[in-house]
């Protein structure tokens, strides 16, 4: 249970990070709060800030929301002993980590700028993935104490 609670809380934080970046991409608010380096602006205004016609942050909102919903559903008493919820969470986290890895590659080697908010999101999704792996390594039926 602790693992799923941790995943839910991490996903909640990640959701708001992605939400801020998405709302900013839609034109809400002024200059992005990113420190003096300006890396966020560089990343957010680059052609790679749009993926399949939508701001990259939108996919973050959808991904974190999906993880949050699944984690909360997995915390229902009837679901606590069912391992398929942990499998689903690990699957979603793996997709998130892979997508984040691609975006981090673009930041480092293509755009040559680092967005602190993106780094924060990368840390969160990586932490979710690690916790999801730890949850999977526990034996079924003993997992959610």
């Amino acid at each position: 249970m602790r693992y799923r609670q941790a995943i839910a809380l991490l996903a909640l934080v990640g959701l708001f990070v992605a939400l801020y970046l998405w709302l900013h991409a839609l034109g809400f608010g002024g200059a992005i709060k990113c420190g003096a380096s300006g890396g966020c602006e560089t990343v957010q205004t680059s052609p790679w800030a749009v993926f399949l016609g939508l701001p990259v942050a939108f996919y973050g909102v959808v991904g974190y929301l999906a993880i949050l919903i699944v984690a909360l559903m997995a915390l229902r008493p009837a679901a606590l002993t069912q391992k398929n919820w942990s499998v689903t969470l690990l699957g979603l986290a793996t997709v998130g980590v892979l997508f984040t890895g691609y975006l981090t590659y673009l930041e480092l080697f293509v755009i040559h700028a680092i967005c602190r908010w993106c780094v924060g999101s990368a840390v969160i999704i990586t932490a979710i993935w690690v916790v999801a792996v730890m949850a999977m390594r526990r034996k079924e039926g003993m997992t959610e104490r």
Partner: protein
Amino acid sequence: MNRFYVVVGVVAVVLAVAVFALLKSGGGASAAAAGPPPTVVDDGFRGYTLGSETAPVEITEYLDYECPVCATFATIQMPTIKEQLINTGRVRWRFRDYPLPIHKYSRFAAHAVQCAGAQGKFFQMQDQLFYHHQWAQTGKDPASLFRDLARAAGVDLNAYDSCMEKGQFAARIEFSRQEGDQKLVDGTPTFFANGTKLTFRRLPGSDDFKAVVDSMIAHASRRPGRQASATH
């Protein structure tokens, strides 16, 4: 279990307030020139150009003055491009405005450059904004700084102030932005060579454009009776 949901609720409220505060701290626009106009009229203007009218290739750049990548391109890549491609008569460069909605002062900056352009100081003002690009990182109202930069560019400030106050070129800038939308511009800077959108895996330099230009000129020369021509 119940305590956990209380924690989730409290964290959600705190984060929502934080996001709201972050967005609200962006502030408001400072002048009529900073926003889109109520109506858009085509005044026939298609951007300032640099280079020979007879150059075989025209590169059109859609740019945003608040965009850091555009500033990097203008200050690091463009001098070499000017020297190797524009000054040699091979390329004509056309500048089009594409203020991104995520930038608070990009329209205002584009307007400042257009007002300077009305006095024949387009490129001088453009350089001032790109070479003093710290204004784009502070989030502060740049109106006062832009007047200083306009003065440094040799602009008459009385005419500049009047132009900015009226929002004289707001419709022109919005027309350019809509034109960019129609051409599927999805970020800045975006480049077109004789009307064809260019895609680069990284911020392009002079060598990248030279390859494009060489290819277009060679392609045109292989077709008897046809020349590479600008579409704008």
